[in-house]
């Protein structure tokens, strides 16, 4: 076809071509091909009659408010005119309108057994969290819904049992009975400590309540650990010790602060809306990160600082900044006088806590500790931390130097780059630095985590520390589940919603090998077809006999409960399919303790069940009482009593609901995407939230905060042989990537998100790359040595390795390389493979940010660009 018009004169042509295709596709009763086109390239608007529900994002801690619209396929969809769509707005809409819907927000899923159009979009009317409908990762949540035609088609849809080496479908009745009988055998013959319950800690109150009721109250096992830690305990013990809840701050506090100390937080990349709504355009940033990330770039462009700290040296940096503050007398004397302990009060705190007894200090003692140690002097600390002395002094000035007799409002945000390094030393020294400048419980002056996953833990009972077989210096410690497994103590592992042994913990190759040996080893009884089936039916007694025989022989039965198959599934004896966000109604909090109701939007596919329901069924069959819930609301209401007096206290909500004959879920849903900030307050029939914690006193015996003396040599230098690179090794740190989430479970099933990170990427300084003959985009292997690598660790294990694509970049300093963490949750690609398994001597947690290994080029060369 001859064209005679200029480029400009053809401006409408392509648009009309698209519009024509769309019109064809949107006729009532779309064909499958047409619906596929809609899914890939466009979306339909909901009609005024569409069902509207409120929910929140499924991903990061910020939990932006979202709305879901559903309407039947084949029925009338919405129009461009305000009166013809559910939003009441005319399309096209202007930039920043909040109604900028993208194809990722649209899908087709089953609702009440019929195909429905679904739009899940940021709430344009949101007045909290994501005001005006700002969004990030959550904009793709509609793609999570199951579709037999799309990448989500590999969803686990029915229970499975490994027979003759293959997983075969069985019924829920059979699956839960097998697990109950095997569990009873383990409980009676091997004891509660022969279990390993490795479970998510975030996936909604209802599920975590059922998990902890089963683990702590029914089994009374100490062998439980959350998905991201080897043992039970606070992620930020330093904050706990000064009496600060890790999520005590309100988001408005970040905005109100004059200067914000951001330690180890991928703020822009992984908590995008927290950055755009509550930080950008607000405080001056001091970013502490071994990698010059996007947040650091922003800081440098806007009058702030990037302190490119040598990995693992944060505690000394904190002490050095404290030194510079104290040297100048810039500490907040008024706050210190009124809100921190004196000698008598410190003694009271010490009676309650061994850690406070060991590390707690009054201001005077802390000042003496900091100024009395020359190693804290900025000029000395610079050589260790890699941060120039003048930068340390400037950071101190920004944080604490009064201007015209007014103190700057300083706040402190920390995350895994901080506390997944040297856990106690880093979090405790940061906490003390915060207290020194008056942060902790005032508007714009707070100390809190940026946050990772959302806050979905509701404990039905306390961790049974008395049952723990682990003691350190005469004190009971929670069981390190990784060590427990590696030492061969586990007989029945039930892994719920995480990638424990393949990618989700330190030294993953050793964990995987251990499970392979115990669960699949040929020396142990395995279930074969002749044993498992009799007359075409499952021979349940024979199955249980064979599995318990394996256990008694020293083997292991491995149960995986999840939504998708993964590498870990290949190790499992029993697979239990669970439902997830949007497939049942749930509740949880986000990063400023905002409690929201997450609507049940679409049908749960296949035979999947909520996690709580699976656990309750097994518990009942084992003879435990108190697991007779009929739905999520019943659990939520029961759990209220366990929240009383805690940061997640929602007891007033349930009390009011009961008094007014409402379901607590329904009452909370009335608060939409705004929700209520816990602890929830009540005045008559009015409920309100708590903006920030600790305004009436810190979470200590005396209500006073304190300082913590962190001896860098004692807690950090003493562990250098474990974590410091030697020879040709580099320090291997890891990070998140915006647009991707965690172990990439959903990313792998979303073409757009998968395209953002098709392979693990190792950022390496050009000088280090050159020295190893590595060019940009070369495939590389990162390998940790064997026993030498883990010298000093409590359990000796072989090393590990993972594969990545090298990207030459000066965002990391020479000697440091940075990968995506837990890429795909697989042993061959997760950077956790090169993390030493040495637990923090104070807290018992791992240093997931302090890997080390040699980097070599892989052959044959693979072209990274081929991903397209």
């Amino acid at each position: 076809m001859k064209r005679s018009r200029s480029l400009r004169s053809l401006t409408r042509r392509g648009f009309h071509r698209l519009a024509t295709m769309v019109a064809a596709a949107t006729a009532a009763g779309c064909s499958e091909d047409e619906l596929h086109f809609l899914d890939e390239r466009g979306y339909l608007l909901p009609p005024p009659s569409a069902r509207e529900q409120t929910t929140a994002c499924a991903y990061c801690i910020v939990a932006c408010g979202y709305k879901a619209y559903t309407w039947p396929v084949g029925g009338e969809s919405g129009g461009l005119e305000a009166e013809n769509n559910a939003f009441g707005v005319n399309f096209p809409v202007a930039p920043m309108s909040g109604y900028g819907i993208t194809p990722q927000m649209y899908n087709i899923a089953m609702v009440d057994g019929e195909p429905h159009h679904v739009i899940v979009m940021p709430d344009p009317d949101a007045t909290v969290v994501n005001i005006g409908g700002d969004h990030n990762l959550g904009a793709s949540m509609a793609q999570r819904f199951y579709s037999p035609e799309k990448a989500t088609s590999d969803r686990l849809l029915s229970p499975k049992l490994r027979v003759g080496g293959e997983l075969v479908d069985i019924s829920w009745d059979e699956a839960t009975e097998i697990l109950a009988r095997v569990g009873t055998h383990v409980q009676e013959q091997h004891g509660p400590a022969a279990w390993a319950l490795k479970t998510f800690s975030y996936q909604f109150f209802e599920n975590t309540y059922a998990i902890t009721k089963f683990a702590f109250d029914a089994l009374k096992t100490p062998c439980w650990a959350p998905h991201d830690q080897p043992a039970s305990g606070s992620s930020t013990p330093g904050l706990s010790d000064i009496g600060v809840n890790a999520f005590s701050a309100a988001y408005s506090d970040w905005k109100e602060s004059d200067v914000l100390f951001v330690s180890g937080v991928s703020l822009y990349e992984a908590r995008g809306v927290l950055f755009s709504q509550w930080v950008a355009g607000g405080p001056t940033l001091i970013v502490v990160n071994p990698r010059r990330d996007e947040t650091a770039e922003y800081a440098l462009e806007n009058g702030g600082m990037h302190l490119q700290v040598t990995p693992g040296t944060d505690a000394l940096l904190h002490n050095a900044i404290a030194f510079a503050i104290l040297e100048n007398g810039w500490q907040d004397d008024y706050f210190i006088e009124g809100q921190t302990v004196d000698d008598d009060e410190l003694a009271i705190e010490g009676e309650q806590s061994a850690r406070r007894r060991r590390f707690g200090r009054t201001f005077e003692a802390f000042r003496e500790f900091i100024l009395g140690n020359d190693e804290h002097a900025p000029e000395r600390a610079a050589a260790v931390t890699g941060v120039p002395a003048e930068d340390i002094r400037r950071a101190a000035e920004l944080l604490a130097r009064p201007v015209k007799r007014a103190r700057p409002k300083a706040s402190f945000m920390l995350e895994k780059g901080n506390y997944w390094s040297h856990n106690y030393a880093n979090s405790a020294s940061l906490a003390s630095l915060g207290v020194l400048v008056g942060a902790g419980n005032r508007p714009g002056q707070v100390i809190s985590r940026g946050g990772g996953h959302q806050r979905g833990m509701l404990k039905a009972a306390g961790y049974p520390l008395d049952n723990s077989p682990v003691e350190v210096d005469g004190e009971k410690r929670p069981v390190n589940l990784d060590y427990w497994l590696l030492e061969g103590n586990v007989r029945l592992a039930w892994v719920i919603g995480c990638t424990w042994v393949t990618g989700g913990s330190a030294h993953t190759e050793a964990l995987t090998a251990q499970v392979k040996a115990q669960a699949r080893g040929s020396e142990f009884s395995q279930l074969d077809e002749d044993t498992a089936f009799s007359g075409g039916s499952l021979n349940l007694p024979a199955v249980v006999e064979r599995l318990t025989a394996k256990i008694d022989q020293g083997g292991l039965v491995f149960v995986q409960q999840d939504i998708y198959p993964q590498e870990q599934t290949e190790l499992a004896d029993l697979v239990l399919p669970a439902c997830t966000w949007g497939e049942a109604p749930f509740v949880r909090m986000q990063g400023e303790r905002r409690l929201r109701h997450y609507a049940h939007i679409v049908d749960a596919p296949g035979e999947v069940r909520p996690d709580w329901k699976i656990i309750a069924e097994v518990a009942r069959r084992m003879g435990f009482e108190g697991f007779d819930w009929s739905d999520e609301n019943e659990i939520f209401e029961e759990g209220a009593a366990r929240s009383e007096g805690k940061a997640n206290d929602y007891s007033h909500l349930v009390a009011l609901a009961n008094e007014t004959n409402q379901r607590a879920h329904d009452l909370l849903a009335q608060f939409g995407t705004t929700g209520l900030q816990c602890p929830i307050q009540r005045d008559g029939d009015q409920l309100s939230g708590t903006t920030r914690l600790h305004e009436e006193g810190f979470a200590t015996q005396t209500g006073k905060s304190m300082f913590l003396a962190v001896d860098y040599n004692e807690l950090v230098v003493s562990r250098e042989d474990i974590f410091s690179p030697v020879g040709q090794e580099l320090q291997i740190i890891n990070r998140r990537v915006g647009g991707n989430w965690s172990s990439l479970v959903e990313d792998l099933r979303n073409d757009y998100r998968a395209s953002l990170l098709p392979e693990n990427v190792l950022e390496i300084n050009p000088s280090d790359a050159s020295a190893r003959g590595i060019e940009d985009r070369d495939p590389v292997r990162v390998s940790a040595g064997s026993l030498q690598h883990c010298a000093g660790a409590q359990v000796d294990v072989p090393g590990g390795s993972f594969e990545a694509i090298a990207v030459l970049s000066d965002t990391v300093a020479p000697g440091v390389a940075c990968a995506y963490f837990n890429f795909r949750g697989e042993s061959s690609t997760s950077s956790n493979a090169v993390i030493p398994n040495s637990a923090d001597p104070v807290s018992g947690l791992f240093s997931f940010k302090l890997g080390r290994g040699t980097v070599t080029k892989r052959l044959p060369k693979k072209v990274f660009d081929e991903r397209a």
Partner: protein
Amino acid sequence: MAVGQIVDFAYPTEASTAFAIRLGQPASNGVGPDRDIVAFLRACPHMGCPIVKINVDKGVLGPCGCHRSRFDLTDGGRQIVGHASQSLVQITLEVEDDRLFAVGLGGLPYGHAMEASR
């Protein structure tokens, strides 16, 4: 077009700002003898802000002035870093008689919706 040259135009409507650029390196959906000429809408697919900055040497559009998103012009507008849930909308180009024609879009422009049959 010379390497590095940027041509602004309106597409698909008079109100929609777009640009064509010769990157000097082969690009996804590129046209011309070196397959290095591409065109995109300037509207950020995150919230519609027009993106002004272009790093010609790196073939990168952005950062967006609203939320700092950046897009790879050599790779179909794939987001490098940012908050968008789709790639930058690429404009399909055709060359005829040494002239460039914009003949289609790789996706819906920000803020537009599809009209259902009614």
